[in-house]
């Protein structure tokens, strides 16, 4: 769990010290000393070290809420803290958020009501900018910068009250699109305005910002994996990822937003164990069919095992499709697909060579052709096999007539 949330807003050094982007170095040291007497000393000292050094500070700044008025930052964090889904409640329980209207509202209302308000406001984050009115009204924030919005979405995705597939799909799409809008130069300009107020030297190298944005990207990928892992059905997870791929990519240009690629990568890790089981099933059924053929098992039983294999491959394909698509688009080899295709292709050839099961071999190869249509290297070989079998079938027909 810790790995997922290392860049979470509620673990950010600013949050740990109750500091704002505009606090001076001296103020940060004072805050750290005070906080370290009341909460985890190591965390406070590490947060101080990070915020007090101009170069190291960039990572905390980019992972925070750039461009948001410091007075409003803690309103937003209060929403996160108050969320129903906040199973990741920070161990820094001494929040001293500035008191204003929202804080008072949330502090006064009963817990259940408070959670509902928080969830309602946060829910609007996943919609496009135009539907941002609820947050605007509540927080007095007219606009969130894309980087702040992405960080907030990520924090929210770690605390969803409900990880239904459709909900997770919407959130993944929201973070994918928001990330596409992050502009490093804009982030640099915003941070430098904040640095002027705090007295820290300006960030002069744009590469410092771009590299931190890439770190955020890796964090978002972990967040996406966290959300996917919370969907209990493996098939539903695959469907979510396929929907994301189909909705966020441009089929004409074959252009994938980078976080879509990352989402599939995250899914691949999350599905690895399941896919391995399915691949072992395919292996076992392959052996079973060969033994059944060798032992001349009765037709109905034999065919039922073959049907089971075909069904298993189709189920496996549903799961593996997003990974296949992504690998193919990147020009990378998907070893599991090659292994599975080779195994079943050789089975079809075996059944034909040894037992003259022409129809069955054709049926298996046709199914494989559909499943591996997206992988030209495999599809080419299966097509060649099918052509050979079709030629034999034609020759036989000609001999009959």
């Amino acid at each position, binding site marked *: 769990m810790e790995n997922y949330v290392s860049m979470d807003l509620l673990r950010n050094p600013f949050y740990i010290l109750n500091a704002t982007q505009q606090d001076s170095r001296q103020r940060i040291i004072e805050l750290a000393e005070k906080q370290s007497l009341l909460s985890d000393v190591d965390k406070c000292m590490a947060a101080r070290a990070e915020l007090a050094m101009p170069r190291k500070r960039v990572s905390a700044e980019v992972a925070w809420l750039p461009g948001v008025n410091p007075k409003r930052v803690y309103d937003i964090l209060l929403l996160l803290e108050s969320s129903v889904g906040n199973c990741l409640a920070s161990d820094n329980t*001494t929040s001293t958020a500035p008191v204003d209207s929202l804080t008072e509202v949330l502090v006064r209302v009963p817990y259940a009501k408070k959670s509902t308000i928080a969830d309602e406001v946060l829910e609007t984050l996943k919609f496009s900018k135009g539907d941002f009115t609820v947050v605007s009204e509540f927080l007095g924030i007219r606009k969130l910068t894309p980087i702040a919005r992405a960080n907030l979405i990520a924090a929210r995705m770690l605390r969803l009250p409900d990880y239904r597939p459709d909900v997770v799909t919407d959130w993944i799409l929201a973070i994918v699109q928001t990330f596409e809008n992050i502009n490093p130069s804009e982030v640099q300009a915003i941070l430098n305005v904040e640095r002027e107020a705090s007295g820290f030297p300006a960030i002069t190298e744009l590469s410092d910002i771009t590299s931190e944005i890439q770190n955020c990207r890796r964090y978002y990928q972990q967040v996406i994996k966290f959300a996917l892992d919370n969907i209990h059905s493996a098939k539903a997870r695959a469907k979510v990822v396929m929907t994301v791929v189909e909705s966020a990519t441009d089929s004409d240009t074959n252009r994938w937003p980078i976080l879509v690629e990352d989402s599939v*990568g995250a899914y691949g890790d999350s599905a*690895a164990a399941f896919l391995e089981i399915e691949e072992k099933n395919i292996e076992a059924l392959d052996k079973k069919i060969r033994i059944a053929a060798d032992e001349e098992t009765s037709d109905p039983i034999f065919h039922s095992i073959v049907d089971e294999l075909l069904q298993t491959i189709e189920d496996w394909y549903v799961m593996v499709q997003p990974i296949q698509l992504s690998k193919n688009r990147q*020009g990378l080899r998907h070893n599991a697909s090659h292994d599975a295709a080779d195994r079943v292709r050789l089975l079809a050839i075996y059944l034909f060579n040894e037992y003259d099961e022409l129809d069955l071999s054709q049926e298996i190869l046709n199914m494989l052709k559909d499943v591996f249509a997206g992988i*030209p290297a495999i599809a080419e070989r299966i097509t060649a096999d099918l052509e050979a079998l079709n030629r034999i079938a034609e020759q036989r027909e000609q001999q009959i007539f």
Partner: protein
Amino acid sequence: MENYIGIDLGTTNSAICTYDKETLQTRVWKSPEQNDVTPSAIYFDRNERQLIGQTAYNAVPRSPDSCATLFKRFMGTGMPIELSAVNRTLTPEECSAEILKTLFGYLPEEIRNSPDIGTVITVPAAFDQMKKNATLKAAEMAGIGSVELVQEPIAAVLSFMKTHQTDGIFLIYDLGGGTLDITIAESIRKRVDLLANGGIELCGGRDFDRALVDNLVRPWLYDNFDLPDDLANNPQFKKLLRLATWATERAKIELSAKNESAINLYEDEIRMNDLNGDEIYLDIPLQRDFYNDLIADRVNETIHAARETLSKTGYTPNDVECVVWVGGPTHYKPLRDKVSSELGIQGDISDVDPMTAVAEGASIFAGSIRWEDEQGQEDQEDQERQAADIIIFNAIDRTPDDTSKIAVRVEGQPPVDYKFQIVGLDDGSDSGSLTLTHGEVVTVNLTKPGNNTFKASVYDATGNLIQEDEIVITKVDVSPGRVPSELSIALEVLGRIGGEPELEYLVTESDLLPKNGDTTVRAGELLEAGSGNSLNFKLRQKDAMGNQSDVGLLQIEGTDLPEGSSIPINTDLKCFYEKTLGGNIKFSVEVDVAGTVMVFDDVYYFEEGFTPAASQVIEKGLHIQKRIEHIEEFIDDDPRLEQARRKVELSTMLDPDEPDMEKVLEANQANSEADRLLKQIEEDPGNRRQIRQSDLNKAVGFFDNYIRQHARPAEETAFDNLAETAQRSIDNNDNDFADHLDELRGRNFEILWRQDWFVIEEFKYMANLDAERFDDSDRFEELVHIGTQLMEHPEIQEILAGRREATIRSEAVDQLRGVVAQIMSIPRTGGAADHDAMQSMITNILAG
């Protein structure tokens, strides 16, 4: 602790200092010759009597084979120190132990014999784990009890801050005999934080001496005497160069105080004739201008290193208060002036002695840290108290301030109407009765140096005493913030199954020590009980120069698991790690096996680093030279390229049979330095993109020009897609570009490998390689023999003569292909078996 001792265990000189916590004073203990520093030299005389320090140092030019010097450079390398004249072999640790014992001998008996001593020994910032372990071992051999290590720059800063009252940012320029350390430190109210470390491993006074000998002394000798060309290696004249180096160093030191000096040695000091029988002497005038020109390039390198270190912090020279000078060569004023003016930062003019600052700082450090035995006792008391209480009084327990803070922490619901009171037991100060609430902070006065004791009492609503705690706050002279780690420690993991190994950092450079934590990774493959497989946790270190090496290995083996159990793929593996203040690493793994939590902590730590053979150093140098040429294709105006070229010359010009291991080690370090410079150039964002783009264009161009015609349609599509992915990786500045590039090159190779002509050419190339480069040279020669016979086969002869259709399969080529593949698979580790065994161990741990 009653006694705090700091030891600067230097490469050329060492020093010892004590710190008095009550008076806040340091004292450097002098050698019998009344010098503050003692040369780190050991000499065995004709009667095999052991002499240490100045006497030993003076004996070096005349009896080099009876003396041990510069052994610190070999700490942790396993390299023996041979004293052939007295037929003795010592380890570098034994030598260091002798120096430590000698230094301890300078202390008064009451300190020396006290059981209550905390000793801090300094180590260079660039010391890796193996070298640190070796230093601790030397301390143990010397019989020193409680020992902590501290980086030399940190000690230097503390010494400076002790006398310097101004808050601000400081650049510490520590130029020793062999190394430059740059440290950026910040002081706020006598609290010292180290912001960044940097430096150059091979740059110091010895390099200046060498430059003088090569450019002034040697030419003068050849002008005035008849001497052989191979002066350095000629056994008859080796002693002459050693004496000349010694005299040069003496003259150079004199130059710190005067505008000119002379390198002098009389005939009766040298006692040697030239080839004509003339008596050799030295009388060479040395002027500052000449010397300044000679060392200008080196000094510029140090200025560049200082700028680079400062840039790590994000501060500019305008933000820096002054440069603090440490180390012998900084005595030379023209050097200080140049560094100062080039950096645009004024030099320190306080009275910190560059020769003893490190030892003094080490003793201050000893007085300002919590020693493990104190810590253990206090932690236990804290735990007992906290377990019993819901009210905890927390304080900043070590501070240089005149005041400190005590905070009230209430676990759970605060009791109603409770009061508390804090009384100073030393001065009778009283906070009065205060309402007990969580987060209440009381400021207390610290009236004396050392321990100040307070009593905190809690009363209920009716005034009954509920709880009473004693709080000790130590007022120290200077308080080091926690110490930043000089090395990154990482666990090697896979980003995804089938992906390339990457590093998950546990401690990164400049993380504050001590640091502990945990991280959860996952099993990348199934581990079944009884199987011969293992889950491999490889710990690696990365230094400030970007060099990586192995630190240790923890394995969970199939045989470790209870019968019938397994660790399935994706199982969470919780890793606990700690890097102590002195830089030691502890690592363990916790995993749920069939409902039982098992802990594995049997880490194998490498005790000795790997010292390569001269031939390997040369090969590495040549490889770096190729990289320099590659980078030069598109970057030609970067001065670092010239620096790297100069450094790598040390290894490319090395004799493959060089017997002097110091030279081999130096050349190896020079390779690391050059490698670091190239990495810097490559990592420069603009350059990185340019270099990557050029590499990609080359791979794609090669495919288009030579491979596409042989590729299948699916291979063409896949290559084009991968090239696009690699392009995107460049655009996004992703770390996976190198993987994609390797894959693209691999695809090119895969297609070529199918071509018969390629296999034949590949064999021809391999057959001409030197068999000694292969670990199993017999096997290599056997395979070359088989291949040579196959080359005579008619099918291959037809191909070579261009008389065979490419589409007709040749069995002889297939066999030759097998031979080439086997040659490729013979390892070429060059003896680094231990570490290579770790490298060949599969990484099968997935990132969390």
